[in-house]
């Protein structure tokens, strides 16, 4: 059976003043229906570029994306996107922000039904009391809750989350991870989250896809996370397998992410030799180079 989401030979090239820069090169990833994928890698490696290509917000330079048997060519409400900043429209209330999408997707439903859909998702994420407030009156965490409700309320084929909890404090982050898992389990959605938080990736995902450093970033390795669901954070922390997985991912980020996996097509030049010593010596070295 063909995969639900298929990223094949994905390339992304940006024009720069110094000529074209290939940020993502030959990225291949088949995803099963209902699977939760975490994409990790260093900042700026191109994780978000991959996500925004799937979202249809960024053009694919080469290769293709097939979602549920159809090629992705533009953005659309069949993919719910949760951005890093919640991106709520500040002149609308939380409820109106969710309704904006619901009105688009459920245009055949009655006004009452659409209101109920928005209210349902807002209450599931814990905004039942605050749904008629404007984003400015909500805390950062509540805004992101609203962003999650908006994405789920569209009843999308899949969810795309771009470092959704990156700007939150740890407690709020854990709360929202649970909200997300809860909704994901209820709705049986395929999901892809971009993150650089190793613990988050293990807690949420079925598979953690590790990306090599850009430019020309690609899939470096994939780790299957086999903890049973629904997952319990405490049990997970007591499981030695959790630390093995964690160690594996951190090792990848620290050591292996700098190398493209074999076969190496274009060997990257070795990094320029750094002058030895501390600040003063480096300064003298730079001075001598003048």
């Amino acid at each position, binding site marked *: 059976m063909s995969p639900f989401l298929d990223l094949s030979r994905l390339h992304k090239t940006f024009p720069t003043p110094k000529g074209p820069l290939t940020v993502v090169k030959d990225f291949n990833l088949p995803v099963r229906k209902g699977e939760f994928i975490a994409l990790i890698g260093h900042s700026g490696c191109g994780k978000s570029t991959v996500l925004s290509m799937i*979202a*249809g*917000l960024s053009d694919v330079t080469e290769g293709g994306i097939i979602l549920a048997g159809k090629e992705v060519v*533009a*953005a*659309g*409400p069949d*993919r*719910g*996107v949760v*951005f890093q*900043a919640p*991106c709520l*429209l*500040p*002149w609308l209330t939380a409820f109106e922000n969710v309704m*904006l*999408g619901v009105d*688009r997707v459920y245009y055949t439903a009655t006004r009452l039904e659409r209101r109920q859909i928005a209210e349902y998702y807002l209450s599931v994420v814990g905004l039942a009391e605050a749904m008629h407030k*404007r984003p*400015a009156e909500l805390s950062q965490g509540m805004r992101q809750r609203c962003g999650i409700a908006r994405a789920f309320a*569209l009843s999308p084929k899949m969810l795309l989350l771009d470092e959704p909890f990156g700007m939150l404090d740890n407690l709020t982050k854990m709360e929202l991870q649970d909200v997300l898992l809860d909704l994901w389990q209820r709705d049986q959605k395929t999901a892809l989250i971009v993150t650089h938080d190793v613990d988050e990736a293990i807690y949420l995902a079925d598979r953690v896809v590790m990306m090599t450093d850009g430019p020309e970033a690609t899939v470096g390795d994939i780790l299957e996370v086999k903890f049973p669901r629904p997952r319990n954070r405490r049990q997970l922390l007591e499981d030695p397998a959790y630390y093995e997985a964690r160690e594996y991912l951190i090792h990848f980020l620290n050591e292996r992410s700098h190398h493209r996996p074999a076969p190496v097509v274009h060997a990257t030049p070795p990094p320029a030799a750094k002058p030895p010593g501390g600040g003063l010596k480096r300064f003298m070295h730079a001075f001598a180079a003048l």
Partner: protein
Amino acid sequence: MHATARTFLVNTACLLAGLLLCLGFWILLSATVAKELPTPAATWEVAKPYVLEPLAKRGEQDQGILRLVGYSLALVAKGYALALLVGTPIGFLLGLSKGFARVFDPIVQILRPVSPLAWLPLGMVLFLSTGSQALENGALFTIAICAMWPTVLNTAVGVRAIPQDYLNVGRVLKLSRTQTLLKIMVPATLPYMFTGFRLSLGIAWLVIVAAEMLTGRTGVGSFLWNEYNNANYGNIIFSILTIGLIGFVLDRLMSVVEGRFKTV
């Protein structure tokens, strides 16, 4: 409470001190170099009938101050409305379309610094065919075209400053062009638009005085000019104070409205 009461007292004292200084300078001027300049007391003497009976109508030019201000404000309202109706869409087009901006931005930049005094004759020529209405229409045209620019430019800046994030929300939801315009672009631009609207109103009020002086249409501006010709110099000062005060009130009103949209 105590602190606020104190700042209020200090502010009032400062305001009074400023007023007294200006009055002193005025008295000094009329006593020394400018003997023709009426003193504050003399000014009040000539202005009295206009202030005490603000709605009186004794003749075509001889009317209470509120009536005169009313005539001016009515014309400003019309010209200002016209400026907003024309200026806002032009601003949107300038902000949205690079091509449109390339064609029309240089023209905007050239027309913008032209003085109202230069536009007025052209306005009257344009409306010569309307006969007795030519003066009024010419004045309207002048107000509209002079007051339009801040609205045009601020709207264009606002449209260009719409965060990409908001537009992405529109793309992800696949909103139609009209919906993106009405639900995302216009609300996102409103704060900038209102800054433009406020500046435009200030200019419209500046222009009305010049327009009335030149066309002789009844209002505060022509009152000022007539009283100069009648050698009632006190009323020149009285008119200036009135014009300033009305302009100040208009600006405060607009900034209250602007503030409401800023918080959104």
